């Protein structure tokens, strides 16, 4: 998805959307996919993990000044957490105490 502001892309008479469905979805489910399917690397809910299987590494995306992390809730519903990039960067930087 293009998430870059682009006022110059304002054009009349043309759809900006390339409609698509989830990869691997059967043709009969042409219109059937979930927000989680849209995620590039959605984490399966804990209930679907094999015993001992660790949660996959979350994959961050960016949206303007925000980063977003996609998760799957226990019942399979999608959850996205948006964080301001500056906040995320602050937390990623070790504090003075940690550096020592």
């Amino acid at each position, binding site marked *: *998805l*293009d*998430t870059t*502001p*682009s*006022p110059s*892309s*304002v*054009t*009349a*008479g*043309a*759809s*900006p*959307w*390339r*409609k*698509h*469905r989830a990869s691997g979805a059967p043709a009969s*489910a*042409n*219109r*059937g*996919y*979930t*927000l*989680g399917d*849209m995620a590039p690397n959605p984490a399966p809910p804990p209930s679907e993990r094999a015993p001992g299987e660790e949660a996959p590494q979350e994959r961050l995306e960016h*949206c*303007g*000044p*925000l980063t*977003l992390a996609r998760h799957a*809730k226990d*019942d399979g*519903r*999608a*959850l*996205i*957490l*948006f*964080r*301001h990039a500056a*906040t995320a960067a602050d937390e990623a930087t070790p504090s003075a105490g940690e550096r020592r």
Partner: protein
Amino acid sequence: MSELRFDELRGEQVAYAIHRQDRTFLPTREHCPLCPTRPGGPSSEIPFPAFEIAVFENRFPAFEVPRGAAEVVVYTDDHDASFGTLAPSRAEDLMWVWRQRYCELAAREDVEYVMIFENRGVEVGVTLHHPHGQIYGFPFVPPVPALELAADARLGGCAPCALLHRELEDRTRIVCENDAVVAFVPYAARWAYEVHVSMREHRPSLRECDAAELRLLASALQTLIRGYDALFERPFPYVMVLHQAPTGASGQATGPAGAGGGHVHVEFYPPLRSATKLKYLAGSEQGAGTFISDTLPEQSAATLREAIARAA
């Protein structure tokens, strides 16, 4: 699973989502499903001890795959906040979240129209007090945006652009403005304190807005909502709806040539007509579809300007 039925008399769809009858209704603060899940506390919809902005698929959706979407947007982990009291940076972030969700849902084959909205106050049926909004991905273009497209055709161009031009010439109904956004009580307002917050430039959706415009949109919305809260010195109930271009396969082509088929504006429908009186949709509104208002838009605009000044 919701069911759509077409009302032949009115020429419109009706959605039946009977599972919503059992949705969470005004829970105690301790059991708020939109608060973070704190250690030792009850689990909520957001299984993290803190968060900034969270979006998740509605547990009780009016629309769901393969025919649309319903999402919840939680503005903050602070149960007692409101859109108007968010830090300006958080309100600005929320505009980016709206933009991201619009773009992602627009790309789905089963979504023809993305409606981002907030219901505030028990007067408009709010069932959770934690500050949040919702997003519906309609599998069809609903009547109101369809009427806006018809207005484009009738006026021979972008109707919101034409109406904004008229308001800027008249100026009596403008309540606040900045470099990118103008807020006004519309000429034919249906609600006593209805306000439309419109982008100055023609922007079919938030996708076409630049960062400065998103920041100024957030600022104008907060200015207005704080003014609303100052109007009767109480949290002001409203329905707030972001209007953008339909997202069907034909997309903006559904509008007339040169119109763009959409113009970013936020409409507020507050049910209060005075500090203690609600406007009800009764005989004329329900049976004939004609609103009867007790308040002139010009008077409401003057009153709102004073309230916004008090809140500043």
